[in-house]
């Protein structure tokens, strides 16, 4: 009976285990046994967590100004484990963005973006942007005071972008001002458009890794006699599974200790005294307060553009300076700047 069933299956799905293994079995360089080199898998895992919890929340969320806040309240207070899944989603987002940034920093400081992997860096940058946008749209869905005013401010910032800004704002809000059709827009961006984009980008991202192979690194203290690679399956998979479980435990812990709250409901007539975006926008928020709107927007755009083009800027710098490490020094300065501005925004009220 079992053999007949197996035969039936094999005939319809003519893929054997061995084939599947060979397909997935990329040899993994040894340095990936160190966790900070495996940070690319972490956002991917968290992304899955976000999809699962996001789908769960979508069963109850109602994206309209009259219902959004109440449905969030309902999820948080009335549905069984609603507070937990909402907190998981919130903390998952925080962790995911943090992991993406750490992953990017690791890639940057090990100069893993250099020839021939420039395009994958660009894909990665696209992933960073999409992730940040997903975070932003998600935060706006809660429809509490800060969500509402965050979206309002962001829309007007994009308005300051020359030429395309007005169109971007109109597209984001579905009109010239925040209106009753804005929330559905933000929702469909958050729950369909952006996640799909992320999935497609990740596929390309991973495909590039498979095509190029993981950047090889050798540490001076390593034993040369030992094999320099190990199997993805099952060895690296086990590592990723462990990381996944650790992440779940961490997420559950912070979700229980610092559950997601609901602030006061959005009031389009009263801007709260203290208004802050989510932490990952602290940098740009502080930047905005330091300079005029146009300069801040333009300079931010310039910086983002430079980040996209860094593999080529880096090679130009290397040619210019003759040193291999110019990017690393710039990176250190940039990191201090990022951390500094974030902390500054975090500690002050205005």
């Amino acid at each position, binding site marked *: 009976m079992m053999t007949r069933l197996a035969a039936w299956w094999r005939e319809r799905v003519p893929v054997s285990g061995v084939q599947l293994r060979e397909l997935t079995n990329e040899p993994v360089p040894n340095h990936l046994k160190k966790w900070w080199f495996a940070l690319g898998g972490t956002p991917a895992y968290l992304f899955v967590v976000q999809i699962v919890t996001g789908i769960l929340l979508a069963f109850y969320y109602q994206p309209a100004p009259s219902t959004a806040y109440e449905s969030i309240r309902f999820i948080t*207070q009335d549905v069984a484990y609603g507070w937990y899944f909402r907190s998981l989603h919130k903390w998952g987002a925080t962790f995911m963005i943090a992991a993406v940034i750490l992953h990017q920093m690791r890639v940057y400081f090990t100069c893993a973006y250099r020839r021939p992997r420039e395009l994958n860096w660009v894909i990665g940058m696209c992933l960073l942007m999409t992730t940040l946008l997903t975070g932003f749209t998600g935060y706006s869905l809660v429809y509490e005071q800060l969500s509402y005013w965050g979206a309002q401010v962001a829309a007007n910032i994009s308005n300051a972008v020359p030429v395309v800004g007005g169109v971007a704002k109109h597209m984001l809000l579905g009109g010239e001002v925040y209106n009753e059709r804005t929330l559905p827009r933000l929702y469909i961006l958050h729950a369909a458009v952006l996640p799909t984009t992320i999935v497609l980008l990740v596929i390309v991202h991973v495909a590039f890794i498979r095509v190029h192979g993981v950047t090889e690194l050798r540490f001076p203290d390593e034993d040369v006699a030992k094999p320099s690679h190990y199997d993805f399956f099952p*060895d690296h998979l*086990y590592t990723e599974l462990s990381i996944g*479980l650790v992440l*779940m435990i961490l997420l559950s*812990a912070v979700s*229980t200790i610092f559950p997601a709250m609901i602030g006061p409901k959005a009031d389009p007539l009263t801007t709260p005294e203290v208004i802050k975006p989510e932490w990952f926008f602290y940098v740009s928020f502080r930047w905005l307060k330091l300079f005029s709107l146009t300069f801040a927007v333009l300079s931010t755009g310039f910086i983002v553009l430079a980040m996209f083009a860094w593999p080529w800027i880096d090679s130009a710098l290397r040619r210019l300076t003759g040193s291999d490490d110019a990017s690393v020094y710039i990176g250190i300065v940039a990191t201090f700047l990022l951390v500094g501005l974030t902390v500054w925004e975090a500690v002050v009220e205005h």
Partner: protein
Amino acid sequence: MTLRMKQALIAALGLLFMVSLIFVQWMEVARRREEAGVSVKRVHAPASSAACVECHAKVSTGIIDHWKGSTHAEKGVGCVECHQAGDADVDAFQHYGATIATIVTPKDCSRCHRTEADEFMASHHAKAGNILASLDNFLAETVEGAREPFSPHSPTLGRNITMVNGMASAESGCKQCHGAKIALESTDGALITVDDLKPNEDGIPTARDVAARVKRNEEGRPMLHSSSWPNTGIGRLNLDGSRGSCSACHSRHDFSPRRARQPENCGKCHLGPDHPQKEVYEESKHGVAYRDLFQQMNLDAKDWVLGVDYSQAPTCATCHMSGHSRNGGKITHDPGRRISWTNRPPVSLVMDTDARGAVVKTADPEKRREEVKSTWQEKRDQMTQVCTHCHAQNYVTAFYRQYDDFVLNYNEKFAKPGQQLMAALRQAKLITDKEFDEEIEWTWFYLWHHEGRRARHGASMMAPDYAHWHGMYEVAERFYVEMIPQARELARHAESEGKTEEAKTVLTVIDAILARPEHAWFESQKAEKAATP
């Protein structure tokens, strides 16, 4: 790390993940339990009142908002449950398909709250309407106003005033606390009250002919006369024969037990120069502690039992009404059950009460034994049970000794002599039988009704300034500096008119009072001075 170790690690982490989820579950259960107690409750208008709520939410938002916050709303008690009336009720009318009445009486409330209504009916509170024919009322109705409407002294610019309602002071003053006698307008221009309707036990008027004369407006609604409504006085005399108004304390339309537990609630009436209980309380350590700690006092608790739900400070309700841990949390709606002296009359009486809750006034010991159903000592024991939640028994006993001494000192030194003096003056016809038409009557009234009560209330609730400066000091001044000289003046005046005998009787009474050892200090030196040439 070997694969084996990784497998073991994954197994361990998987289990740890499960443990963290179990913790999540524990949090969920804890949260649900907490929620079941206090926080978010949803309110849905019962179908019977859905239409009322929908319309009144627009036309009178406040009452609907209040109702939504009430326990009634939570439990599905809507508008008609309380306002519904029978066709035979004299004040019933049709209102969008429902037969309702405007005034909800204790009889209506007793449909569900039987015990509370019964206790209330037996209380002194329910009898507050008796004032409507008493001395105090003579003040408002005659002295301050006029029983009959009178014509204006001169025109009022911008208004066409033809008559003045002399009962205005009684209506806005006395009756708002004591309760009005609810009156309907009659087609013959008279007023219809409970006295005319003679309702039976179910509140249905037996005088059908009177009920038939009730005047109705164009919507068919019986017209309540403004002399009696709006009114939530605690002794209101309702058309169905019931007395009182539950909303006097449990304000409509949220009927908040929380509010009834707070002293401010009692302060609508129990304040002012003649019975400043609220101010007395605020001066006392009890009131000071309450003001400081009320936020911790669990005022929203379901039963609010002293010693269980709170013990930070007592409010009026705590001592006089609320349940406590020593009586099984049993609340009473008769605030007289724990009071051992009544300080309301000129001379304080002990609270030996009869079956109807009235103070037994007979001196005959045999009759007393027969009539007294509840002694003052029983009442004091009940109060002591409350006190001992915070104070030791000997502390309470000693306090009561101080309090008894204070009341007796007032009674024996000023109240009884004052009463005797007034009786002597009246008997000798040096003053008329009419109250307040002679200065000395005002003097005596101030002495016992204002200052004497202030003093006694101050002592009863631990407010030293009221006991002394606002109290006994003024009692003494009133007695020595006004009452005695005024009485002597009356006697001298009578003498000059030739009523020697009458004057002599009164002067003898005065001299006898002042010759008593407790009054001897007052004239002993003056007498010596007069004796020496």
